[in-house]
């Protein structure tokens, strides 16, 4: 704007009045420092950078997602939906309410007459059947006794068995002589299972196997449905009705906890650590580095030597050491030890940056000019030093955030981060690793959130650096 005005003035016709000295006014004496326009210019530069603006938008969205949405929606991170463990992302599902009273089984059968060993090895149990319609609370099997069998082994497969060595999970062996039934309750899902039964003789020999396919439907016990207020558990008619289970948009984890809720609350932990640690570092760095650079001399040397010591500490090793040394008490989340460790090890590099900047600024002509015009130390620090230092600090801050988020994720991943049940993205990744092959969403979702956040901060940092770099702007 000022340049435009300047060019226009060339076209003006000058009169003698214009060349007369102006009356003394306070306005002329005031040192006008375009501190605002420094940031305005930077902002304009940044706004022109699409990638940076996209990153900024992403970061704002993430912040809203993690910190604002919980104000309106109550996210429950701890309640366990044991009927929907490790469920993939999806919508609500209907579930059958079933009575889960213990099963007495079917009448015992035992046929003593033992056939020859090779006959036994070739024979198989007959009449393998389902005692009730199968559902995810239990599958009840029964069969006819095989002569010579003292117990039966029950297996469950997700593929059709191809050989006696390919019967699937060994669910168990019947415990009592003559028991010709079995109840399977092991993590049932709504998919087709192949149940196989093998008889075992007194000598430990196995018979051939019989197989039965069953596809359980989703069910919830009367007790559980009652506890969750889905039905009135006192009502004897309730078994057999259907209810709608709460939906889990992004699926659930290994305890049936809602992943969306945990991602939101976990994001609070991760983002809080990621933002707070660099911020505290920055404040401390400005004080420490500023003081060091401003005072100079012996003290400067001493302070910087100490900073060098801290930089020399092996970072990850000391992160772990400090985290463990501080300890986490009962019921504590473990955020504070992580924060302390990150700050304790993170401040020196920023402090050195600030000090360097201050040293450079001290020699700048405009500082000397300001001093000549009678500016006091307070004025110098607040109007000249700080705004100029802020640029460097802001850029290093933006780059420190992703690395802090990574450090938190990494430590939580190796089990040295926040304490369960506090969720954090890194801790969720740790939880999800075990089931990566069967339920990849439990690892990939939190990992994706970490990646997007880190990416956004990195890109914003790039943009900021370009915007604040005086050389580029000129």
């Amino acid at each position, binding site marked *: 704007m000022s340049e435009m005005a300047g060019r226009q003035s060339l076209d003006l016709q000058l009169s003698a009045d214009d060349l007369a000295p102006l009356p003394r006014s306070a306005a002329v004496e005031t040192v006008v420092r375009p501190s605002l326009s420094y940031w305005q210019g930077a902002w304009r530069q940044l706004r022109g950078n699409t990638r940076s603006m996209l990153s900024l938008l992403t970061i704002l969205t993430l912040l809203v997602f993690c910190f604002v949405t919980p104000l309106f929606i109550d996210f429950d991170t701890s309640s366990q939906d044991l009927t929907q463990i490790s469920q993939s992302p999806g919508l609500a599902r209907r579930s059958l309410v079933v009575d889960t009273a213990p099963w007495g089984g079917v009448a015992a059968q035992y046929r003593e007459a033992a056939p020859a060993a090779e006959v036994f090895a070739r024979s198989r149990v007959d009449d393998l059947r389902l005692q009730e319609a199968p559902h995810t609370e239990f599958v009840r099997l029964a069969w006819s006794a095989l002569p010579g069998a003292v117990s039966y082994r029950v297996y469950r497969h997700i593929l059709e068995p191809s050989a006696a060595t*390919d019967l699937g999970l060994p669910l168990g062996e019947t415990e009592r002589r003559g028991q010709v039934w079995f109840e399977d309750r092991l993590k049932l899902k709504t998919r087709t299972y192949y149940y196989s039964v093998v008889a075992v003789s007194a000598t430990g020999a196995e018979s051939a196997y019989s197989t039965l396919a069953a596809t359980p439907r989703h069910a919830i016990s009367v007790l559980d449905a009652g506890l969750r207020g889905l039905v009135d558990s006192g009502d004897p008619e309730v078994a057999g009705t259907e209810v709608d289970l709460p939906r889990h948009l992004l699926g659930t984890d*290994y*305890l049936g906890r809602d992943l969306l809720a945990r991602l939101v609350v976990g994001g609070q932990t991760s983002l809080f650590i990621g933002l707070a640690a660099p911020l505290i570092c920055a404040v401390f760095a400005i004080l420490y580095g500023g003081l060091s650079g401003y005072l100079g001399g012996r003290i400067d040397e001493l302070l910087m030597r100490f900073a060098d010591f801290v930089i020399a500490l092996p970072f990850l090793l000391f992160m772990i050491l400090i985290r463990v040394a501080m300890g986490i008490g009962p019921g504590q989340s473990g955020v504070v030890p992580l924060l302390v460790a990150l700050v304790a090890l993170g401040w020196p590099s920023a402090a050195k940056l600030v000090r360097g900047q201050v040293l450079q600024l001290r020699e700048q002509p405009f500082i000397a000019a300001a001093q000549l015009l009678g500016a006091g130390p307070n004025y110098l620090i607040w109007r000249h030093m700080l705004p100029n230092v802020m640029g460097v600090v802001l850029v290093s801050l933006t780059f420190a955030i992703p690395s802090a988020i990574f450090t938190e994720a990494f430590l939580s991943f190796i089990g040295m981060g926040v304490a369960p049940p506090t969720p954090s993205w890194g801790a969720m990744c740790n939880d999800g690793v075990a089931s990566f092959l069967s339920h990849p969403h439990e690892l990939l979702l939190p990992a994706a959130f970490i990646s997007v956040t880190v990416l956004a901060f990195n890109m914003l940092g790039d943009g900021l650096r370009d915007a604040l770099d005086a050389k580029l702007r000129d």
Partner: protein
Amino acid sequence: MIKTASIYCRLGFRAWLGLALLGLTLPGLGLIAPQAGAEALDFEARRINLAMSQEPPDLNSITSTDAVSGLVLDHVLQGLMTYNQQRQLVGGVAERWQLRDDGATFWLRPQARWSDGRPVTAADFVFAWQQAVAPGSGSEYAFILFPIRNAQAINRGQMPVTELGVKAIDAHTLEVQLHQPCPYFLDLTAFRTYYPLRSDFYQAQQGKYGAEAANLLFNGPFMLTEWIHGASLKMQKNPHYWDRASIWLEHIDVPYITEDPNAHMNLYRDQKIAMVDGLGSDSLEGALQSRMQIKSFLDGAIFYLEFNHVPGRVTANRHLRKAIQSVLNTDDLVYKVIGSPGTHPAYTIFPRWMQGHRDLFTREYPPSRPVLDAARGRHYMELARQELGLAQLPAINLLADDSPGGQKVTQFLQTLLQQSLGLEVRVDMQIFKQRLAKMSAGDFDLVIAGWGPDYNDLLTYGDLFYSENMNNRGRYNSADYDHWVRVAQASLQPELRMQAFAAMQDLLFEDVIVVPLYERGRTYVQHPRLQGVVRRAIGGDPNFNYARIVAPLDGQP
């Protein structure tokens, strides 16, 4: 700039491509190097390849305590007694034996030898046992020798080691004096702390016994021939082993050591190892998809929720414990949360596979099962609150370690108690050693504890809540319970002992000393051609002493 760039494009593209390819292939040349003995099974060489979760921390049999070292030790050393392929107790170094009220005599096999060819003598046992109880060795398992006369006094430093009640009558006769009748003493002599050590070899190592493969001497079926710390171990058949004819395998190689279960699974899939032990419920699906043969066995570990019984703690209140007992749904825990086949809900501290008098103990004396009833639980809570004279029950601390399995159970319990009883539970998650320290110091209200057996007798579980037992971390103290433990310790009458254990079991339930959670079943996959692997709860597990490889069929890898 753009113009010059396009010049590079034309001029240098092929050069760049070549450079890039070269960069990629150079490291790739290493691939051509053959990898000898890298397959899971080798029928010709009688070799199997395995992976371990960690390397053995301590191969000195008198100080060793952990499972991984136990696995190795049970292949390379042998005690007076040992377990055979059917898990029965049989003679090891001892050929004959006699157990009396006041002692025992063992006649050693003259053909039993050390791996340097010299005979195993009675003096080797005397030396090992004296070392194990000597205070200077700092053996944490010294207590297991306490049935021997004077062992405890020696370990306390009140007597010289020479006073230990064990004597070598001659080279092949060992005489043991017992402190009091010990019905399970023969089982004890199969335990690693009872293994022999040869004094001249032991002393020649100058404190480094067990540190490297070269610092060990063997009398078991195998020898540890190579041990690269953290990377690999190699065991080879011991040519001097007295029963070498019944050992088929020549080599047991452990080329991989990693605690990452996914890595084990991937190695198995890649046909690099013959077995994956301890599959999590999450890796089962993949194993089923690939049609692997999955097996399971009970590894002897029982897990339970332990209460702090020290007066002043809220958990010292029986009604509070009752409340927890009546809402703790172990079925949900086992079937839905843990979800590993072979793991059983536990209702008592005694595992289902342990023998009673004539039949399995839990069949002779079935444990009582709590009736799950949240309303009754809240009623007990109310009673507890009144007895304690509190307006509201305070939050209680649940101590847990940070292992993945521990976390799962801890978080399940926390939410369960909170939702069904309104009891506020604060999880106190600590790294392993910190949890142990807090447990020993009694700094907890609730702790999820596990116990594995040391020897094949119900007492290894039953004396856990004996008031003087150091492992009784909740400091449960009952004259009744102590009485029954003493009966079981000293009586030689099986019936009476079983009654004593049944009485302990009843007290455990009635007084809610602990709430049993589950009996751990371990799931594993094993190469279909590898047979005769013994899985067991007592002794080092798994055991490959009797393993053999089935000949490959034609056309099958």
